[in-house]
């Protein structure tokens, strides 16, 4: 075959942030195949230096609009760790509920608005609004439900106001929670419709497998989102404070974001990594959804991350109902967030939609932030995306340039990368 195929996608569409695909296949040989991150660096770790303890979460929330709740909660937990501040059971339950809201919101945004067009053969969701009106309305309703949930618990869908160091500034009323509970139950019908819609087109997801390491939080009592230790499908459990030894961030010339590796050349984080590590702790409904797609651990097809997100939507809806029941059974106390400021250093981790997130801060006696580090999920995935490129492109190199381009775009999209998040991570 004497031809040169060049696939250059500048700014991959339907992902958050700016990344490029650069592939050259000459005479049937892959000569170049790169995933490049070209997002403008933003330098958050420097920006929080010199700011007060109650401002760090406000600032780092702005790392990402889609996962601002996750950044806020991770930041609050890290500050609380640094200052030995304990939070109540009520705060913990409410934060878990808020995190569920964000996971549903982010996952449905990804699966419904960004991935579904690939499955239905459309360039975007906009033409689907007329050609597949009912399907789009299912997606819109689930998205709206998750945003109502964020509004109610966090005070805003993006950059939440209520969660603060030590607790919340305002609590929902029992009546509001009961209404939300009913809405979550109603959401199950839309979830079923979504599952059926994706199942009917799941054959469009490429069959590609590459063994890799999956890293996520793990908790003894629950499917870990809000808390846990670091774990890996290669074996091992580590306390969160050891995160720099897990992430091993390094710089590569093609990217303004750092890459990561642990046991192998790369690892994956996100819904599929969580499912691969904690499948047994999924709610019954979530397991049933996984079975519809024959998704069992350990699954090494990155395209199945899309499906793992649907499984997690089911889990968050069902577990959200359980959490509301627990909160209502305990009764909502109008407690005030309390924080005694002192010097210290603390790291914390939360599973946010795209995977395991770490924040670490150091504060002085006056509660001024003197040092910060944030390790973002997408950063940890960049290396794995690159390794998938190197494995998948040779397998499909004889297809047309258009087909290769679409498949590689779908691969990038499957990771649900949050690229603006990922371009400001550090080691010192």
């Amino acid at each position, binding site marked *: 075959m004497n031809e040169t195929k060049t696939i250059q996608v500048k700014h991959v569409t339907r992902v958050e*942030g700016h990344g490029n695909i650069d592939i050259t296949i000459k005479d049937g040989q892959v000569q170049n195949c790169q995933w490049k991150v070209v997002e403008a*660096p933003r330098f958050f770790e420097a920006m929080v230096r010199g700011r007060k303890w109650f401002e760090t979460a406000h*600032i780092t929330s702005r790392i990402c609009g889609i996962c601002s709740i996750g950044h806020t909660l991770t930041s609050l937990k890290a500050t609380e760790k640094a200052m030995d501040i304990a939070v109540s059971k009520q705060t913990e339950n409410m934060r878990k509920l808020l995190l569920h809201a964000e996971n549903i919101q982010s996952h449905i945004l990804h699966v419904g608005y960004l991935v579904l067009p690939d499955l239905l053969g459309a360039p975007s969701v906009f033409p689907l609004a007329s050609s597949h009106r009912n399907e789009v309305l299912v997606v*819109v309703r689930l998205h*709206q439900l998750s945003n109502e949930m964020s509004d109610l618990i966090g005070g805003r869908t993006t950059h939440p106001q209520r969660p603060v160091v030590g607790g919340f500034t305002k609590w929902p009323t029992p009546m509001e929670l009961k209404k939300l509970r009913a809405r979550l139950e109603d959401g199950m019908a839309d979830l079923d419709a979504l599952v059926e819609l994706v199942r009917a087109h799941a054959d469009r997801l490429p069959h590609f497998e590459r063994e890799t390491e999956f890293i996520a939080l793990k908790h003894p009592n629950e499917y870990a989102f809000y808390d846990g230790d670091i774990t890996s499908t290669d074996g091992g459990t580590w306390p969160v404070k050891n995160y720099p030894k897990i992430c091993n961030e390094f710089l590569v010339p093609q990217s303004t974001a750092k890459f990561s590796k642990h046991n192998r050349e790369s690892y994956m984080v996100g819904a599929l990594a969580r499912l691969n590590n904690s499948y047994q702790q999924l709610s019954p409904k979530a397991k049933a959804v996984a079975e519809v797609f024959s998704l069992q651990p350990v699954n090494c097809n990155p395209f199945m991350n899309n499906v793992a997100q649907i499984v997690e939507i089911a889990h968050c809806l069902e577990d959200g109902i359980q959490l509301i029941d627990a909160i209502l059974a305990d009764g909502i106390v109008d407690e005030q967030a309390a924080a005694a400021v002192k010097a210290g250093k603390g790291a914390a981790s939360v599973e946010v939609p795209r995977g395991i997130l770490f924040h670490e801060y150091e504060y002085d006696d006056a509660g001024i932030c003197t040092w910060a580090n944030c390790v973002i999920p997408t950063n940890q995935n960049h290396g794995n995306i690159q390794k998938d490129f190197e494995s998948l492109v040779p397998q499909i190199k004889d297809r047309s340039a258009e087909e290769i381009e679409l498949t590689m775009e779908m691969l990038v999209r499957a990771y649900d990368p949050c690229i603006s998040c990922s371009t400001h991570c550090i080691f010192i």
Partner: protein
Amino acid sequence: MNKPKVAFFDFASCEGCQLQIVNLEADLLAVIEHVDVVSFREAMKEHRDDYDIAFVEGSITRRSDESRLKTIRENAGTLIALGSCAALGGINCLKNFFELDYVRETVYGDRTMNYETYAARPLKAVVPVDFEIPGCPISRPEFVRVLKSLLLGKKPEIPNYPVCVECKIEGNICAFERGMPCMGPITRAGCGATCIKEGSFCWGCRGMVEDPNTDAQRDILNKYGLDVNDIFGKFRLYTGYSEVAK
């Protein structure tokens, strides 16, 4: 009648303002019945350069981004800065208070020279901007109001009175009464005083009203025994660009 062609673009930002447009939910379906969305990288693969209205999110943080913004300006009849990063410089400008080499070294260590950056700035520091929708994130109703005005051929208006006005209408207890230094007296309204309503205080994300009454702000601080530095630090959160690095 031809529908106006609308495009969305972003520079350094969290893309949270474009997310608010997705968050219009069913109203978004109504919006797209009245406009043709011809470019929206975060949501669609299609792209065309013949847009009438460009909404641009994010601040400009490196020289190499200027040409892309200038092209957008040339293509667009109307260019709208979407959100505080685009309209004011926003939170990205916090880095302007440090020496840039220090900032880069903090994040990228000894490989710092590979990572281009300069002082973060709003769009209007690079190209003329027709209208601004401030906010971190933008208010969804305000976005819809501005878009409706544009579609009707009217000049969009956003409030030029302080957050305190809306805060009173909301019936909130004043943040100062709760012992919190608040930016409400000098910050542009339009958010429904949402942060104060949720138990926090105004962070000043929408920037200042024109001709803010800084004397009154100082009087309030004195009345409640608060330090002017408390406000100064907050002022820098979103409107730092107006202070340094022009």
